[in-house]
């Protein structure tokens, strides 16, 4: 992939859940090394968009995409594309952390254990590296074999992020990853977004405009399943003011 090829290119006409149109006219390119915030009110289609980019809605009855979603130039909704292969380069972090009822260490290396050609001896070192990345290492280094669900929600979210980062996805989709987390976890995740935006494409769905301004290179505004062509100015219109202040 050349640097000119966008990590994500949307040419979506419509996205449906059965007969309900949830996204429409989404045409945009997201560069390969940058963080983009997707900001908009609840129900504007932000999460649906992220899930569409990683084909997480494939099992949802009546879900269909009209148009094309290109990841590194490849239409991910063509029949030749295997969804699990796609998700190896498009990782997704959910709003609510989900750790498996296993040890902290087993959670970190969970995805990696299912990859071919991984040197098993290198796993502990790789696990330490990503746990340091998410600033969790100092908190868990002496209890890696403890049950992961006993961690706090903020720690669980950082663990989920470490579990994703160890797989080195080229594109990182983050769906409100810091909502209702403790300040320490928020700070760790924001710092990581800033660092990793130099390495990979990050799409961050957030309800926090200040956060979007702090850590992202660009902010895309969404409402009613569409991108707003230009960011609304706070006092330019009632709608713009409402969107920025909701």
């Amino acid at each position: 992939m050349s640097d000119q090829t966008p990590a994500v290119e949307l040419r979506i006409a419509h996205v449906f859940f059965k007969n309900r149109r949830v996204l429409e006219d989404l045409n945009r390119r997201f560069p390969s090394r940058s963080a983009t915030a997707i900001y908009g009110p609840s129900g504007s289609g932000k999460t649906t968009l992220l899930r569409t980019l990683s084909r997480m809605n494939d099992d949802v009855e009546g879900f269909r995409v009209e148009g094309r979603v290109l990841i590194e130039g490849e239409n991910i909704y063509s029949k030749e594309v295997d969804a699990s292969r796609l998700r190896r380069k498009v990782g997704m972090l959910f709003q609510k952390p989900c750790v498996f009822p296993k040890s902290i260490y087993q959670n970190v290396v969970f995805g990696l254990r299912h990859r071919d050609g991984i040197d098993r001896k290198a796993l502990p070192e790789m696990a330490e590296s990503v746990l340091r990345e998410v600033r969790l290492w100092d908190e868990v280094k002496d209890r890696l074999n403890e049950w992961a669900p006993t961690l706090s929600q903020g720690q669980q979210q950082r663990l989920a992020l470490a579990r994703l980062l160890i797989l080195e996805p080229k594109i990182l989709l983050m769906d409100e990853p810091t909502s209702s987390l403790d300040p320490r976890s928020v700070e760790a995740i924001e710092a990581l977004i800033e660092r990793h935006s130099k390495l990979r494409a990050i799409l961050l769905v957030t309800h926090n405009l200040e956060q979007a301004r702090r850590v992202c290179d660009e902010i895309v505004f969404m409402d009613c399943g569409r991108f707003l062509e230009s960011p609304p100015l706070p006092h330019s219109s009632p709608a713009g003011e409402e969107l920025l202040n909701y």
Partner: protein
Amino acid sequence: MLRAFTLIACGLLIFVLSVAIIRGLPAIDLVFLTAESKNFGLEGGIFYQTLGTLILISGAAAVGLPIALGSALFQTEYLRRAPRLKKSFRVLMDALNSAPTIVFGLVGYLVFGAAFGVSWLTGAFILAVMILPTMQSSMVEAFEALPESYRETGQSLGLGRGAIIRSILLPQCFYGAATGLFLGLARAAGETAAILFTATTFSGVTIPESASDPATTLQTHIFTLAQEGLDPRAVENAWGAALVLLTLVFALLSAAIWVRSRLHWESAV
């Protein structure tokens, strides 16, 4: 009113259990449990009948478990976008579950009996088909209770459907699936009609030596001795065998309840 119905239901169960214990206990001793049946069941014990019952339900488990597991996985994991087909599947299983067991015996004899004759293997196949809906629906229930976030997390880490089943679904739903197995086996252990003329014999058999040999089971033993109602020794031995069978069924049900209590995934996720 509801309390009265509950009391009636519990009272009936306690009555049946009490009668079985009071009438069966005098017949049971070490010899009865470990000796071979003699003089057409009037003397000796029920060792080979117990063994035959265990052989039949083990065979039913060996045949039925993979089919129940496979169809439950297909229903929950591969028909996610086809809810109508999934519902049809469930209706089919419910219909199978409600069919009279004697019909299983007749159809089973027609299908499996033609290949294996009156044999424990025919009985195992018939029981496997009979307990399939019990096991399958219990497994479906366990798989559907797994929080969707587990599957989605597996997907987001690039795991294929097979890897999600192997590494997430089955380990997390192990106890639910085991509950289904034990419930099915409990049902198989209590079944008489379907195997009476297809898999078992009353006497002349100890351990089946080949797949085409019939087995002697507790159910057949009780059925035959109970017909000898005029001989008090036969009746006492029938009650003794009934109590052993009841204990076996309750042991399997207790195992099912115990493994169900071990379901331990994070309900908060």
